[in-house]
């Protein structure tokens, strides 16, 4: 069964091909069966393979398919590598992916481009599986770019609106900045270590590079660049909120559960390099911390239901980076998994809300919907609880591990921990702000809203609710992967620490309740304060990062493009042409047509030549 691991990406790939080649001529039912079924089959095989792999007790398993290209030492192959980490990722991708596909069959049912949607989705799953299963960095890069492409295609899925196209291109180009850094990292690794096979490369790095050597730092930094771009961390986080322009299942699958966590996967996969470059690892932690705080502030100010979730995603991935930086590799992957559950749940529930309210995104135009949309309501309650890491939900266990690992970091551990706790506080505020505003209070319109409760949409929500609640009990089999990792020894921390960590989200929820539920604090009054108002606007715009990038990157590029539309270098040749032409015109003036003039010039020439002859 393990040998059939190549089936995993093959099923969705076949789904993609059959949907593309038929070009939308299939009936919807069949499209749905192909689209969701292929991922379902993938999930099924993933489960079987996992069972066998875990039963075998092996640390890893390699399936070599064919040599991709072989030039001298450079021999990346189409080889799949299965270990605990890729196993977890593979199950998340196919499992959550299948649920979201199932949900989509209901969600997208009215869309004219039904088939195209599932084609892209299938391609995405295939590419994502390549990313996590590839045994070398080139294959990983193939998946990496492939998911980027699908992300682009799906964000711009409703292409009639140019804004969507803009968001899609922004997502692709911004992540490609990171990808470029990663590509350079690949070049560096190959040039220095002579292989791009991940395991061989890591081994060679351990043998050849000393702790903190400049090469290790450079390599780790470059890979981090790729991870930061894909996972929407500072400073390349600006694309993710705009990416919400895509259909909601896309946001759930790509921009919450799987693709955006690819950066976390990459860092975890190449953790040896980061361990060799402790400074870069510390940088990872601080990037995570900064991102989670920044995104937390911003999430509190957004009005668009999907943007709130997007910023919360950025913030949660920030936690994962914090964990990676703290060396708690397993905790990061664990949080990745729980996050996939509860964030997919939240997005799908948000999709239900949006669909029921006829594509209304502004939470302040909703309100009081808990009766009308019960499934969505409960989904949000459970999802938000897990997001805020309330005790006994899945998010609690993973975030708890992360914060403890952060505290254990030597040096700035306390700082990291405090930042994380503040982040948790914010998480409480913004997650329940959403719940309170949308589901409680007075209805702000859409009184006729009725829940779209087709089983294909309800069932995934139910399943994800269960996972979001109980996912914390899953044991991830990562010990063999991160044998060298830190953060395993149970830190002996005081009860106070635990109390603070548990209290923080509750405090946040409380604040949120006071503002948005009981209205003890008046938001309008607060907004009247100029300082609060300008802060609000600053946070709302995502800390002005978009405007900043617009000013320092986009505008100069557009300016350069505009002033040099007709190619400066060509004007040099145009100059040559005009010089030749004017010289020609000048000489043509001597062509008077008068015979006497010609004879005279001939005579003058004769005189001249003889003079020369005489003189020489």
């Amino acid at each position, binding site marked *: 069964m393990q040998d059939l691991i190549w089936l995993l990406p093959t099923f969705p790939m076949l789904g993609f091909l059959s949907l593309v080649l038929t070009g939308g001529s299939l009936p919807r039912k069949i499209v749905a069966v192909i689209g969701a079924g292929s991922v379902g089959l993938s999930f099924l095989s993933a489960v079987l393979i996992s069972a066998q792999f875990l039963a075998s007790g092996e640390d890893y398993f390699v399936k070599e398919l064919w040599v991709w290209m072989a030039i001298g030492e450079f021999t990346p192959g189409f080889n799949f590598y299965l270990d605990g980490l890729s196993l977890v990722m593979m199950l998340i991708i196919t499992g959550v992916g299948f649920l979201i596909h199932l949900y989509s069959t209901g969600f997208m049912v009215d869309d004219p481009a039904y088939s195209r949607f599932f084609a892209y989705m299938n391609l995405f799953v295939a590419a994502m599986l390549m990313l996590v299963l590839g045994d070398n960095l080139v294959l990983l890069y193939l998946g990496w770019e492939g998911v980027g492409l699908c992300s682009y295609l799906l964000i711009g899925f409703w292409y009639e609106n140019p804004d969507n196209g803009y968001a899609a291109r922004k997502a692709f180009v911004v992540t490609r900045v990171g990808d470029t850094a990663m590509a350079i990292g690949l070049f560096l690794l190959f040039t220095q270590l002579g292989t791009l096979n991940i395991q061989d490369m890591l081994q060679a790095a351990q043998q050849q590079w000393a702790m903190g050597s400049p090469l290790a730092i450079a390599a780790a930094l470059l890979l981090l660049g790729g991870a930061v771009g894909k996972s929407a961390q500072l400073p390349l986080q600006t694309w993710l909120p705009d990416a919400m322009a895509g259909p909601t299942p896309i946001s759930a699958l790509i921009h919450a559960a799987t693709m955006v966590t690819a950066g976390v996967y990459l860092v975890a996969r190449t953790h040896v390099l980061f361990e060799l470059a402790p400074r870069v690892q510390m940088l990872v932690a601080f990037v995570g911390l900064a991102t989670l705080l920044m995104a937390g502030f911003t999430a509190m100010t957004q009005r668009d239901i999907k943007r709130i979730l997007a910023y919360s995603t950025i913030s949660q991935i920030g936690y994962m980076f914090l964990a990676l930086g703290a060396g708690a590799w397993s905790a990061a992957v664990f949080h990745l998994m729980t996050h996939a559950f509860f964030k997919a749940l939240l997005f799908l529930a948000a999709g239900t809300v949006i669909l029921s309210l006829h594509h209304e995104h502004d939470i302040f135009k909703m309100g009081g919907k808990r009766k009308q949309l019960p499934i969505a309501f409960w989904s949000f309650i459970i999802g938000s609880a897990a997001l805020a890491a309330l005790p006994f939900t899945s998010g609690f266990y993973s975030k708890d591990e992360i914060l403890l690992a952060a505290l254990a970091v030597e040096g700035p551990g306390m700082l990291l921990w405090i930042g994380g706790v503040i982040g948790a506080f914010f998480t409480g505020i913004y997650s329940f702000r959403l719940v309170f505003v949308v589901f409680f209070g007075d209805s702000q319109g859409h009184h006729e809203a009725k829940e779209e409760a087709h089983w294909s949409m309800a069932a995934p929500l139910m399943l994800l609710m269960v996972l979001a609640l109980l996912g914390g009990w899953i044991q991830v089999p990562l010990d063999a992967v991160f044998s060298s990792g830190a953060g395993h020894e149970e830190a002996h921390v005081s009860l106070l620490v635990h109390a603070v960590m548990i209290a923080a989200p509750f405090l946040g929820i409380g604040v949120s309740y006071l503002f948005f539920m009981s209205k003890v604090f008046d938001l309008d009054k607060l907004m009247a304060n100029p300082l609060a108002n300008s802060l609000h606007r600053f946070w709302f715009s995502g800390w002005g990062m978009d405007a900043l990038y617009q000013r320092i990157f986009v505008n100069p590029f557009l300016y350069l493009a505009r002033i040099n539309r007709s190619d400066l270098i060509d004007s040099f040749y145009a100059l040559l042409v005009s010089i030749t032409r004017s010289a020609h015109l000048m000489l043509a003036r001597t062509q008077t047509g008068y015979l006497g003039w010609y004879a005279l010039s001939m*005579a003058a020439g*004769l005189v001249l030549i003889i003079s020369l002859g005489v003189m020489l």
Partner: protein
Amino acid sequence: MMILFYIAATVAVVSTVGVIVQSNIVHALIYLILSLLAVAVVFFSLGAPFVAVLEAIVYAGAIMVLFLFVIMMLNMGQHTLDQEKTWMAAKDWALPAGLAAILLAQLLYVLREYRVDIVPNEVGVLEVSALLFGPYVLAVELASILLLAGLVSAYHLAKK
């Protein structure tokens, strides 16, 4: 012979001046014939009787008759004569005459140290024809083709 040479040379120069300054075209032609005949005499004095005769027959005879015919065909009357006079303004002459003078001066300068006195031996028709039909036979053929071409084109051009 020396005297003959100088006399003929003087006549040639004077009559050539006549050619270029005359405004009456027929007079000019007569001067030209005179000039050519004088040159024929020069040839003779240089011991080249064959070309002297050819000069007189072909040049002064045949070619000049052609000119005469054309002048007659063109039928230039009094108005061309007047026109001719108006065209011969002094300022039109200055530059060409100056150029020609410079050219001549250069020639004289080049010849300044060239000094060979000869007593011309007659190089007659025998030697010329021996060469013509010896080494230069190809040139003769070419010349005949040239003449043929001239004949055809002249016929074609002068035709209506």
